[in-house]
């Protein structure tokens, strides 16, 4: 079954294992849980190395649901490895960072944090390496859930809860849509395996040609956009910043939000040529890029700025996918992961140190946190795209792709708009980077919030705190310098999703429009930064328009109100309404069924030849008894006449020769009459005055409808043509002989109940047991509650 003994399965399983160990661990693990998760992340990272070394594609597959054609398939192609390396690498760093950052008094809470973090890491690795659509969806949902747990880590304060809930709602909505999209894709192509679909042009052609393709594409895109906080769904990301900083760094910068873009990379080979692919992605990408950059510049809270810039950077990558630039998409992903991770972790150090994240209260920390300052500077420069950092190379490739894309060339207007938007957002990013670095670290050292100066110096950031950002920022610098040579280009080509030709990522690009564009963006950015007060004043004036998150909350509240209104209206507690609804459904269903099947009451042809005359007499008595029940003035009279009806019906069973049911009917009639007597005290007295004529008529109508339907149904079953051959019991293979041979009994009725259809009876008797237990449970708890109330009542009187 296991195709190859590769290390893919342990790589994904290890973090989950760590999560279980940490989660279930008792007190003594306590402080060590952080290190366990770190070790697991490191192990996963290392286990990926052999897979990367072997140039061939490493596969592992295990038949999970053979019936549905779903298999637990992992596949380590270049693109998957890229995300997997990022997830496990940055995961290890974040775990390391958390050991110092997350210091909780209650070890259980800390253990839960690490368990959620580890299971998130496992799920992300699953997404990176999954080769089966459904498997990808399962891991996708796990990430949504664990992100909910991690965002809502400090569940005491309401913002955390609200933010976590909103994140879950949005990403779950996207996940759901995406799963439907996957099902449609599998429906058309007949297989769930991603590699099978992408490698077979015939399947892709079939997918593109099928009418389901636009729907599937939009649904999958919905999943990607919600996860990567793209334009219509960008509002949950800033709200998710209430999470502890390592979580923000890991989930909302390096990995989780990347899953959406990663999905675009995975599905590009499938939907790339679809007519809807390019326009949607370009439009959404550009808008979220520009919107993110614009709002980032306006923000004051450190993490909110970073969240907005993440949305903007992801918008840029989505735009690239729209243009089909899949040769160097890994460069963009890697670059963003490195610098944004570093910046977030620096923000964590600053907050940890100065206990505030607001720029207007921060300043002059370069002496207190020298290393953090260096890391932040490198990260910001990479974000802005200054040489010699990786950011510059990525920006240059971005503009190259922008200018050389044939698709954009086809629509000059859109091309200019996109170009201008890119230049504007790059400039804004540069300005934000400047604001970020200089705002926090340079300038006079302002009195920190709450004026605790002495204590601020005391906790020099411990070693694990600054190592993580330093490594990330250093990585950005090293890769930038390496691009002088050929190393970066090889790395990018190896990990790109669908490299047509060898990507060229060089620090010294050929002179050309892309270079001028990025240089121009840099200059514009610096200018913007120098005039930042005027710009922010302008922005304040322009502020307006409803916040997207407010709209979303409004929609959710409306949904809740609608549900409540529905239930209040229909479940209004009146027994009469419930009874009428249940009774009326039968006639309604019959009318519908009759119209569907073409049955009609005209087909009834029943001869009364074989019915003995006493059958008629019993029926007349039955009618009289029924009228007596309805006309009864007191409850006891009604009870007795109902029992009489039961008796008369039993008599009919004698006339129509069915002894078993006769006995059952008689006994049940008695037992139920005793029940009625037992509860007679509680039943409401019959209304002294008669009901309003209106309600009487309505009741009459409902009863008549029900009665007529039942009569027609019965008569239809009696007409010979419709029901089964009349000798169903007596014919050779019939029930009687069957009962005798196998059941060993002449009484077919009992043999059927107990043996031939014993499975049904098991169901029925289980229902009976449940009824008994329900009565026992409900009444007992009600009585205990009443006694407590009475107990309290008497005490209060006595007091």
């Amino acid at each position: 079954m296991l195709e190859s003994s590769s290390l893919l399965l342990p790589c994904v399983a290890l973090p989950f294992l760590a999560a279980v160990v940490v989660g279930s661990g008792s007190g003594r693990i306590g402080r060590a849980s952080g290190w366990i998760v770190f070790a697991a992340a490191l192990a996963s990272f290392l286990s990926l190395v052999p897979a990367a070394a072997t140039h061939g594609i490493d596969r592992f597959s295990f038949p999970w649901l053979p019936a549905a054609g779903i298999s637990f398939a992992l596949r380590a192609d270049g693109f998957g490895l890229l995300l997997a390396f990022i997830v496990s690498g940055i995961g290890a760093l974040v775990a390391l960072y958390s050991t110092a950052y997350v210091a909780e008094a209650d070890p259980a809470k800390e253990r839960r944090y690490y368990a959620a973090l580890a299971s998130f890491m496992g799920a992300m690795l699953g997404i990176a390496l999954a080769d089966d659509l459904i498997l990808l969806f399962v891991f996708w949902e796990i990430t949504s859930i664990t992100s909910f747990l991690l965002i809502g880590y400090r569940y005491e304060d309401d913002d955390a809860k609200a933010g976590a809930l909103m994140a879950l709602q949005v990403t779950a909505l996207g996940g759901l849509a995406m799963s439907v999209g996957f099902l449609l894709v599998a429906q058309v192509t007949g297989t769930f395996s991603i590699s099978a679909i992408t490698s077979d042009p015939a399947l892709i052609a079939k997918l593109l040609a099928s009418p389901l393709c636009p729907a599937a594409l939009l649904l999958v895109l919905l999943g990607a956009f919600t996860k990567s906080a793209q334009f219509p769904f960008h509002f949950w990301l800033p709200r998710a910043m209430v999470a502890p900083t390592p979580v923000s760094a890991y989930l909302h910068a390096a990995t989780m939000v990347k899953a959406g873009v990663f999905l675009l990379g995975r599905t590009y080979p499938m939907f790339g040529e679809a007519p809807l692919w390019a326009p949607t992605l370009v439009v959404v990408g550009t808008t979220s890029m520009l919107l993110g950059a614009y709002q980032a510049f306006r923000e004051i809270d450190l993490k909110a700025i970073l969240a907005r810039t993440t949305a903007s950077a992801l918008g840029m990558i989505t735009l690239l996918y729209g243009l089909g630039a899949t040769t160097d998409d890994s460069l963009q992903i890697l670059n963003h992961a490195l610098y944004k991770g570093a910046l977030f972790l620096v923000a964590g150090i600053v907050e940890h140190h100065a206990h505030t994240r607001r720029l207007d209260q921060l300043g002059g920390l370069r002496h207190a946190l020298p290393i953090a300052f260096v890391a932040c500077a490198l990260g910001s420069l990479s974000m802005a795209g200054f040489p010699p950092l990786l950011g510059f190379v990525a920006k240059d490739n971005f503009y190259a792709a922008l200018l050389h894309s044939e698709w954009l060339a086809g629509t000059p207007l859109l091309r200019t708009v996109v170009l201008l938007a890119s230049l504007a957002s790059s400039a804004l990013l540069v300005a934000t980077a400047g604001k970020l670095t200089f705002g926090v670290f340079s300038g006079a050292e302002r009195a920190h919030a709450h004026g605790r100066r002495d204590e601020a110096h005391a906790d020099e950031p411990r070693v694990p705190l600054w190592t993580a950002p330093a490594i990330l920022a250093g990585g950005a610098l090293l890769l930038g310098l390496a691009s002088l040579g050929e190393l970066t280009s090889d790395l990018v080509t190896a990990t790109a999703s669908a490299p047509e030709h060898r990507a060229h990522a060089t620090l010294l690009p050929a002179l050309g429009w892309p270079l001028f564009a990025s240089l121009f963006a840099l200059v514009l950015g610096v200018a913007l930064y120098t005039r930042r007060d005027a710009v922010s004043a302008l922005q304040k004036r322009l502020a307006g328009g409803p916040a997207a998150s407010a709209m979303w909350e409004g929609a959710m509240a409306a949904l809740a109100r609608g549900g409540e209104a529905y239930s209040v209206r229909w479940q209004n507690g009146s027994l009469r309404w419930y009874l009428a609804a249940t009774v009326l459904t039968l006639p309604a269903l019959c009318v519908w069924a009759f119209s569907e099947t073409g049955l009609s009451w005209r087909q009834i042809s029943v001869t009364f030849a074989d019915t003995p005359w006493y059958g008629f007499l019993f029926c007349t008595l039955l009618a009289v008894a029924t009228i007596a029940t309805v006309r009864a003035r007191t409850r006891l009279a009604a009870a007795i006449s109902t029992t009489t009806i039961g008796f008369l019906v039993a008599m009919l069973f004698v006339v129509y020769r069915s002894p078993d049911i006769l006995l059952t009917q008689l006994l049940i009639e008695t037992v139920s009459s005793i029940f009625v007597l037992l509860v007679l005290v509680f039943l409401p007295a019959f209304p002294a005055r008669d009901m309003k004529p209106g309600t009487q008529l309505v009741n009459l109508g409902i009863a008549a409808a029900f009665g007529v339907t039942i009569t027609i149904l019965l008569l239809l079953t009696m007409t010979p043509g419709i029901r089964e051959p009349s000798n169903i019991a007596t014919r050779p293979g019939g029930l009687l002989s069957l009962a005798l041979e196998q059941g060993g009994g002449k009484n077919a009725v009992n043999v059927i109940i107990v043996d031939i259809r014993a499975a049904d009876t098991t169901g029925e008797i289980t229902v009976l047991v449940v009824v008994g237990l329900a009565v026992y449970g409900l009444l007992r708890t009600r009585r205990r509650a009443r006694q407590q109330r009475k107990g309290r009542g008497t005490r209060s009187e006595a007091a």
Partner: protein
Amino acid sequence: MLLELLAALAMLAGTFFMVVTGIGLVRFPDVYTRIHAAGKAGTVGVGLLIVAPMVYFGPTEPFVALRGFLAIVFQLLTTPGATYLLAHACYVTSYPAHARTEVDELQDWIPVYPDEEFGHE
């Protein structure tokens, strides 16, 4: 042939008693007299009617006779009891006897419950 004759006689007598009880139920003025009529059907009427099948199926299926006999014994055991209980219940809840009753021997024997709460519902 003899069996059928006997069975027919038993049936006719049984039915006669049933009909008499029916008439009694309808025409008697108050509940105590009706209970008296009901007593007849419950014991003699049913007894005779059960004898009919016992006799009819007698030789061919002996088991019917046994069950029939058991049923008669149980019927004689329970019906008087039930009618007594009803009469007692009516009396203690002071169900009004018909005007024409002269003698009420039970007056000083059975206590009449004072409260009217769940009497003649």
